[in-house]
């Protein structure tokens, strides 16, 4: 998200007129915020379709829960740590507890809208990580993890790249979050999958997607929401927003085509799960580049990005690494490919606030992009490891193997995705659950509701 113009405005000398809210920009950003929020339920469908039916509700709830837990911690503290003035490493607490966030202009949109727009990014980033720990991580520790992760990993990295931190001042180009969102979440997913260990059935029996149409629905809705993600990152209803929007249309098209062709030539079949994955990888790859490259550049970014992620998934599935829904291959590798290709294809002719890339005769930009990739990779990886290990000392991160075998839906939520109702007996509110039942002791909340 280029806030370069915004920051320049803030740093301008006092005689400049106070920034004013522009209605057109506000209108577009209101829509864009709603679009990005939709991406988290979309992710729930994308992920939910890829797991076994006995854990599908739990998988979807991991995304939905971020809407609540991460959204609140964002509004109360993480926003301030990311976007208020502070050191090059971390923002201050000037906007903590929503202090000083009113309807005054931030750039050309109301400050509250800026907070809301950025909040939707924090929510989906945390939710993305869940794909690496599905079908085994207990729900409570997961909630604590995403809250801590938002404060300790997302907020600092967002500050580095967008909030006036050290990567921003070095000129790292990250239009809508290739580094902050995707590399960050992808690397954290890799570490989380390693710390938690593989599902008990992983590598011993086939673990198949239970609802591929859900996955296609999720991919489609993610694409729809991503227009707000990238187009909205212009923070204005501008030419730049139109460029980012169009690039968000073109890049995934190219990735989809290349991915399906790779599938076809490797296995002789064009798969639906492959197509859905290709769309998401294309969206990830164009995210850092959306407002810096030409539409032709976007097609090339999308086409090239299919290769590293595709072969990373092929390789990963032969290892013991149970990054269950390939968050690292999709978002980590896709994000890194996009961030580096931004340094290759960026053109100042399309965005004067951006920079020229390698092909326009500025190889230094590629180095700057690599610095952004490496620093967020190391920081997110290290911090995720520390948070999960610390949490693991306090409580068990994983469900017991028996619980895992039964499925996470019944054990974590007391519900099933697909019930027939056969053999079920209605419990009247008064005599709720027999106190002697061990099942009731395990789920005290059922009696309370």
């Amino acid at each position, binding site marked *: 998200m280029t806030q370069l113009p915004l920051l320049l405005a803030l740093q301008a000398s006092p005689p400049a007129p106070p920034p004013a809210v522009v209605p057109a920009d506000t209108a577009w950003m209101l829509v864009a915020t709603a679009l990005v929020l939709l991406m988290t339920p979309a992710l729930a469908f994308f992920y939910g379709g890829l797991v076994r039916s006995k854990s599908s509700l739990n998988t979807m709830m991991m995304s939905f829960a971020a809407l609540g837990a991460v959204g609140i911690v964002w509004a109360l503290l993480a926003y301030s740590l990311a976007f208020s003035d502070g050191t090059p490493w971390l923002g201050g607490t000037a906007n903590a507890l929503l202090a000083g966030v009113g309807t005054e202009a931030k750039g050309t949109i109301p400050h509250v809208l800026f907070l809301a727009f950025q909040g939707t990014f924090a929510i989906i980033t945390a939710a993305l990580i869940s794909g690496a720990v599905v079908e085994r991580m207990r729900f409570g520790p997961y909630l604590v993890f995403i809250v801590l992760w938002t404060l300790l990993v997302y907020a600092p990295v967002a500050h580095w790249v967008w909030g006036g931190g050290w990567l921003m001042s070095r000129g790292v180009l990250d239009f809508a979050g290739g580094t902050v969102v995707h590399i960050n979440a992808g690397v954290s997913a890799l570490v989380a999958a390693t710390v938690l260990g593989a599902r008990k*059935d992983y590598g*011993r*029996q086939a673990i198949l997607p239970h609802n591929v149409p859900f996955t296609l629905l999720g991919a489609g809705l993610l694409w729809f929401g991503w227009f707000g993600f990238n187009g909205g990152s212009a923070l204005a209803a501008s030419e730049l927003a139109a460029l980012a929007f169009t690039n968000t249309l073109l890049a995934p098209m190219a990735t989809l085509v290349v991915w399906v062709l790779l599938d076809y030539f490797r296995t002789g079949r064009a798969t639906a799960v492959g197509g859905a994955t290709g769309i998401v990888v294309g969206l990830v790859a164009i995210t850092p580049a959306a407002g810096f490259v030409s539409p032709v550049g976007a097609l090339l970014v999308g086409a090239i990005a299919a290769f590293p992620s595709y072969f990373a998934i092929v390789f990963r599935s032969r290892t013991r690494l149970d990054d269950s829904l390939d968050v690292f291959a999709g978002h980590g590798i896709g994000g890194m490919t996009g961030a580096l290709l931004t340094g290759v294809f960026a053109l100042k002719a399309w965005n004067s606030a951006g920079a020229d890339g390698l092909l326009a005769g500025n190889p230094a930009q590629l180095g700057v992009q690599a610095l952004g990739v490496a620093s967020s990779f190391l920081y997110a990886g290290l911090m995720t490891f520390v948070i999960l290990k610390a949490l693991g000392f306090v409580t068990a991160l994983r469900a017991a193997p*028996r619980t895992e*075998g*039964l499925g996470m839906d*019944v054990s974590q939520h*007391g*519900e*099933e995705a697909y*019930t027939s*109702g*056969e*053999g*079920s*007996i*209605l*419990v009247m*509110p008064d005599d*709720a*659950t027999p106190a002697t*039942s*061990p*099942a*009731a002791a395990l*789920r005290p909340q*059922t009696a309370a*509701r």
Partner: protein
Amino acid sequence: MKLIVAIIRPDRLNEVLEALYRAEVRGLTVSRVLGHGGETDRVETYRGTTVKMELQEKVRLEIGVSEPFVGITVNAILASARTGEVGDGKVFVLEVDQVHRIRTGERDEGAVTPTALAQV
């Protein structure tokens, strides 16, 4: 010649299949069934509606075996399906009058003994 019918937990099915495979028991039928074996009821809540799931999902295995295989098969199931908690299931061993293999028309022992063993 016996028919072994086993009711087991669905989450133990893969372990049982693996154990049967190792014991060289080939040829079986698996069906998903609902049943109740005295285990505690599972309680679920849907927007204020609390229900007790009296019937649990179980898996039924049906395996026709020749006499030498009865003990092997039963032991393989017992060892692999046990969790030690109520609801692990049952194994029934039933007499069988006749068995016919449809493809070849083989009868009785010949129709249920693993081919490799029969040729020895």
